[in-house]
């Protein structure tokens, strides 16, 4: 009995054209072709998708949640990037 797992793939599904692919979960498969077929069987049994991406999980590079505050700090104090930062009199229309 082999205890070696098949490689892990992350599965992304586009539910319909016009929308982005969205992460739905992961699965094991011997290769990418099998991962696509397994993803179809595991994650789209009720027509949840029109397109599937599978990516080897080892290829995902992720930000570190422990560094979240420092990593996203540059955006926190720039509220002037939002339209609501600016005071425009109510009398001015279409802006």
């Amino acid at each position: 009995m082999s205890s070696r797992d098949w490689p892990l793939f992350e599965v992304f599904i586009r539910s319909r054209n016009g929308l982005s692919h969205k992460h739905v979960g992961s699965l094991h498969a011997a290769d990418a072709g099998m991962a696509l077929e397994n993803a179809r069987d595991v994650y789209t049994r009720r027509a949840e998708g029109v397109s599937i991406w599978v990516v080897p999980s080892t290829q995902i590079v992720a930000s570190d949640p422990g560094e979240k505050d420092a990593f996203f700090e540059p955006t926190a104090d720039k509220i002037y990037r939002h339209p609501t930062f600016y005071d425009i009199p109510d009398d001015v229309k279409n802006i």
Partner: protein
Amino acid sequence: MYTQGLDVKPGDKAIPLESGTSEAEQGFQGRIDRDDRIEPKDWMPEGYRKTLIRQISQHAHSEVVGMLPEGNWITRAPSLRRKAVLLAKVQDEAGHGLYLYSAAETLGVSRAELVEQLLSGKAKYSSIFNYPTTTWADIGAIGWLVDGAAIMNQIPLCRCSYGPYARAMIRICKEESFHQRQGYEIMLALSRGSDAQKAMAQDALDRWWWPSLMMFGPSDKDSPHSAQSMRWGIKRISNDDLRQKFVDVTVPQAEYLGLKMPDPDLAWNEARGHYDFGAIDWEELKQVISGNGPCNKSRMKARRDAHAEGAWVREAALAHAEKRRARALKKAG
């Protein structure tokens, strides 16, 4: 469903009630209290990780073993429609097992370890799947009662504090509703049928009712992990509350079928606004959990055989993939 929290041996104090005193532990509890979700790479107490691995994998094993009692009737379903439906349902159970194994793996345990824990008997699965499916009506009773109990148990898990588990549960809950409805439809057809069919439906209800109530796990006062799981946002509603809710919604459904609940103590309690029901035979649950149910041995044998007989397929697929990769590399080079 399927997480009765009974895989605790006497004296198992591995997971004491803790909120911790360190900054990390208090920060973690703060996030839980704010109803924030925990994601795989976030810091978490070891007890939280262990509890989740145990619960999610027990849940996954239950989905997988749960295919066996129903699989028993695929070749003998009474019509092509019933057969197609049952096949789709059993496929869903496989899918649910896979969503859950994936969620458990995000906690740092490998699939091989999880499977090994099931096959060695170290990990448990729900007691309910150790009962036999002796007639077609059992397929109806399972969908109606067992999946009904599962839904009751699983809906609160969609708000579980651990993100990957909660997301898997949302997918599962969407799919379970079909399972319960197809079961009730089978019971409806039988209970509106001949006397023999009606008797078959009643017999199935008689045999599945009490084991279904046991699915919610031990009574709150005997549930060793509940308090901690509640504090961690893994569990939202207590075993006894869920069980009561299940009884309350199911009794009228049985009445509609014209079937009689196998419980002489069952009665509406106006003051409580709930049904009172008879005492559960906890000794039976204990026996089934410890391996002495009617089908424990055959279920485990079926899983072990399937795993052993599939070994060459898993290895061949990997060898084939490696050969093709090597060939592609050679061609490119």
